[in-house]
């Protein structure tokens, strides 16, 4: 029986449905202390004085930390990935001398209970000298108010991506469409579990972390030098993580504070469990992007031949991981379209807002939204139906090399469109739309096509900063037959809800001819297992490729050892052996005979009873560590050219939205999502990921936004104001899939899960289609009741779109 393409119940569920999950905040410990962070109410201010005396005098308070002290205790500030001068930004986990965003930690209080730590926090007296806040990236780029003196500028990155014959394409164009300004808003996927860590800096020098960081391979490389320890001195573990969606990649800064607090508290373990308001204020927002002076060249058939544009990213107070977002979008430069000529001038700047972090669909989603807006705006302006416009422009031949050297492995976008139309009942809705328009109602049908590029080539980091020693990608799995004959697997991925235990067990069961129940996959991540490399983590839609290829490769090596061992025991030839399950459990047997050896016997032999081997097979340990490395090369940094991702899963969504003319309320009447992630390992899990990414996108499109006022106050810093999508706002999703297997992965699977922000493209398209009769062009990604109401009220003819027919 094959386990690939099946949906066995999840291994993770066994504990999670019983309330037996083990999340960071669940950890209790002897002598456990609790940490509370005092945060700045100002977005931008000099710190004049931090007085912790009253807090330290409070019984139950063990110690405090201030920014100045943190700077003393850290041998160096956190590494910034960006090139100079952004590389010179002094990035400490607590504000040193100056706060750059509202909610930035300025002091920490460590106490016997969480309540006492908070009491102590209320007694910390901080004097600030307020400075003007810089709220938009465009404003920041003028450098009138420089946020980081050490960098001397707010600009963190700038580069031009130019491919093909852009100006010639514009000279030859039948039509040029110009769009002055578009804007992709700030939001985050905000997992229900907040950031948390328990740090214990033991007196003998070892530093333990139990955390919910979702990219430990990276975090450890930032933490070690900043804390003055070796990577090996740190023991980092995760277990259950209550969602990350990229957001938990950057909680290493708070891990550092907890570690320093533990050291100051004499080595006692210190827990920090973030509150939701802290999370929304300060733990990372998705990239906000502004697209300026966009020009699109089209031929007489409505085929786009060139795009030139200027894009500005707002990375918030500290770039940290972030300038990577200035390159990562280029994994999907032409989106799903055959455009060959591009000139994109891309820059990024710091502002007095929460630092940006990777967020589901990271950086590609913004660009894909931009490309989808272009398609729809051009379609409307040229009077070409939106579906037809896409069919004229889709890439149809695969593998397809994009103008910047990325290779789209496989796909069939027209088939996805067809399927999505079928699911939603396209023709029927078209009729209903005509009726609605006749009655003066605002009904729109929108299509969004998107890519979920997975398994990134870290070499693209060098396009951003040529000095970074990163390239390629890799992931590790270990598999062994232990002394009881159990199959034990460990992973480097540290998942946060993506069902890695289950899909891993399916792959192992498939390879060994057993069933997934017989495979024990350890939960979480643990540096102590030696199952990690620098790339280890759960991010960038890649587990199905990197993680499962590592598992698959480990199985192959294990099987080779098991064959040799079984051949020795059974005195048979390796070719005659087969894997399977016998009366005494999982076994290897000699084909066509009743001769077999089970896993217990083999495991015991190697681990307990090796004299039987009489000195033979000394290299057989039944304990395999396998690293999978995708076949990448280092990109050409000068030309910004190279293959930046291995697989390209795709999604196509269609939404039908009716807008209330009086109030602007956008109501989703129907929704369809079609997914193609190549060969599917577990359809139920893939479907779950598609639904989840759809909810994030719809939530972001119609509800969620991080809204700042002009002085840098975050006005949506609690769930009551941020309003994440609930069951009342989430439509029934008509879900379907096609499979175009990837030629680049062993199984034909493509990484998936991020979803590429399809609902944002789709909802914008549907809102656009509903409002086009009013002459309104949609140039912002946020369509809350308020923003749609504003659109309707302003009847924005000045939306800045010009059509120049030659």
């Amino acid at each position, binding site marked *: 029986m094959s386990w690939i393409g099946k*949906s066995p119940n999840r291994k993770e569920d066994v504990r*999670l449905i019983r309330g037996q999950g083990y999340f960071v905040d669940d950890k209790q410990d002897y002598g456990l202390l609790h940490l509370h962070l005092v945060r700045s109410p100002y977005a931008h201010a000099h710190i004049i004085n931090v007085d912790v005396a009253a807090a330290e005098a409070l019984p139950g308070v063990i110690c405090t930390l201030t920014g100045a002290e943190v700077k003393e205790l850290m041998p160096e500030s956190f590494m910034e990935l960006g090139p100079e001068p952004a590389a010179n930004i002094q990035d400490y986990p607590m504000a040193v001398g100056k706060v750059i965003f509202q909610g930035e930690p300025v002091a920490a209080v460590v106490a016997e209970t969480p309540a006492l730590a908070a009491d102590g926090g209320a007694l910390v007296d901080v004097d600030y000298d307020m400075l003007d806040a810089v709220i938009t990236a465009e404003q920041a780029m003028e450098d009138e108010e420089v946020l980081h003196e050490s960098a001397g500028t707010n600009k963190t990155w700038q580069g031009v991506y130019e491919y093909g014959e852009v100006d010639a394409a514009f000279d030859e164009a039948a039509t040029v469409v110009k769009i002055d300004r578009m804007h992709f808003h700030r939001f985050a996927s905000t997992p229900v579990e907040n950031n948390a860590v328990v740090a214990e800096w033991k007196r003998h020098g070892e530093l333990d972390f139990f955390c919910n960081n979702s990219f430990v391979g990276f975090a450890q490389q930032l933490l070690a030098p900043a804390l003055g320890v070796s990577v090996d001195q740190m023991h980092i573990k995760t277990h*259950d993580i209550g969602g990350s969606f990229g957001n938990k990649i950057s909680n290493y800064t708070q891990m550092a504070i907890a570690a320093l607090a533990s050291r100051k508290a004499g080595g006692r373990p210190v827990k920090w469990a973030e509150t939701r308001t802290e999370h929304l204020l300060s733990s990372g927002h998705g990239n906000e992007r502004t697209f300026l002076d966009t020009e699109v060249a089209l031929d007489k058939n409505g085929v786009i031949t060139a795009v030139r544009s200027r894009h500005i990213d707002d990375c918030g107070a500290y770039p940290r991981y972030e300038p990577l977002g200035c390159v990562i979008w280029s994994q999907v430069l032409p989106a799903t379209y055959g455009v060959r000529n591009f000139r994109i001038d891309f820059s990024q700047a710091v502002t007095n807002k929460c630092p940006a972090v990777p967020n589901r669909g990271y950086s590609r989603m913004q660009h894909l939204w931009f490309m989808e807006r272009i398609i729809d705006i051009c379609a409307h302006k040229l009077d070409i139906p939106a579906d037809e416009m896409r069919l004229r422009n889709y890439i149809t031949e695969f593998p397809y090399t994009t103008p910047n050297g990325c290779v789209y492995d496989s796909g069939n976008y027209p088939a996805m469109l067809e399927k999505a139309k079928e699911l939603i009942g396209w023709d029927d809705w078209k009729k209903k739309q005509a009726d609605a328009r006749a009655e003066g109602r605002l009904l729109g049908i929108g299509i969004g096509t998107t890519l979920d590029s997975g398994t990134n080539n870290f070499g693209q980091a060098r396009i951003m900063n040529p000095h970074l020693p990163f390239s390629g990608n890799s992931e590790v799995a270990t598999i062994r037959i232990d002394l009881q004959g159990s199959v034990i697997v460990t992973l480097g991925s540290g998942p946060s809800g993506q069902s890695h235990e289950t899909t891993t067990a399916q792959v192992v069961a498939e390879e060994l001819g057993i069933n997934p129940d017989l495979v024990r996959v350890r939960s979480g991540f643990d540096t102590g297992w030696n199952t990690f490399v620098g790339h280890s983590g759960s991010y960038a839609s890649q587990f199905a490729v990197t993680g499962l290829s590592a598992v698959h490769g480990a199985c192959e090596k294990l099987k080779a050892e098991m064959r040799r061992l079984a051949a020795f025991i059974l005195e048979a030839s390796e070719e005659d052996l087969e894997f399977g399950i016998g009366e005494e459990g999982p076994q290897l047997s000699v084909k066509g005979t009743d001769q077999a050896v089970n896993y217990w016997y083999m495991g015991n032999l190697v681990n307990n009873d090796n004299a039987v081997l009489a000195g033979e097979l000394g290299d057989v340990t039944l304990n395999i560590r396998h690293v999978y490395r995708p076949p990448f090369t280092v990109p050409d940094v000068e030309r910004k050219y190279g293959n930046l991702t291995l697989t390209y899963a795709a999604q196509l969504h269609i939404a039908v939205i009716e807008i209330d003319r009086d109030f602007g309320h956008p109501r989703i009447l129907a929704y369809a999502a079609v997914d193609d992630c190549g060969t599917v390992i577990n359809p139920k899990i893939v479907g779950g990921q598609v639904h989840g990414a759809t909810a994030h996108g719809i939530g972001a499109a119609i509800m969620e936004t991080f809204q700042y006022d002009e002085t840098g106050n975050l006005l949506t810093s609690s769930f009551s104001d941020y309003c*994440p999508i609930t069951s009342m706002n989430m439509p029934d999703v008509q879900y379907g899939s096609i499979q175009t297997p990837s030629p680049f992965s062993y199984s034909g699977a493509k990484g998936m899960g991020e979803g590429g922000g399809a609902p944002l493209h789709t909802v914008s398209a549907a809102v656009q289609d509903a409002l086009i009769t009013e002459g309104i062009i949609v140039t912002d990604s946020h369509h809350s009741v308020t923003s749609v109401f504003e659109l309707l009220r302003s009847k924005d003819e000045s939306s800045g779109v010009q059509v120049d027919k030659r």
Partner: protein
Amino acid sequence: MSEDIDKVSIQITINGQHYKRDVEPRLLLVQFIREELGLTGTHIGCDVTYCGACTLLVDGKPVKSCTMLAVQADGCEIHTVEGLEQDGELHPLQKAFSENHGLQCGYCTPGMLMSSMALLAENPDPSPDEIRKGISGNLCRCTGYNNIIKSIQAAAKEMAG
């Protein structure tokens, strides 16, 4: 501050087990259950009664335990996720959530299960819209809710026999 806070004695029954403790009046019910009793199945996700991760049943009614003080629960009978499984037999809701992929990271799941319990106790055969309303106070960031609605429908069917 804390040194002048007098503790209050409370008695609470949780999943049939009787507990007597002295607590600070400001202690939230969820903190009491998690930190004092070590029943960590009930989670905390926000601080404004929005996310519902901390939902449990107080005298049969679903309550967000981050917005109730432990002292307010004095004398009450409480049910948490840890009490759903009876004699090694999973509750139909637990089975249905697993079978219908109604959970991914599992962080919202305990609260979601407890709200579903209350919903089905009041309305054993809810329509999808009634289910949506029933769990509208519980956030899930992983599943997009569709599979949760399916799970509750499946459990309702199973419980109806």
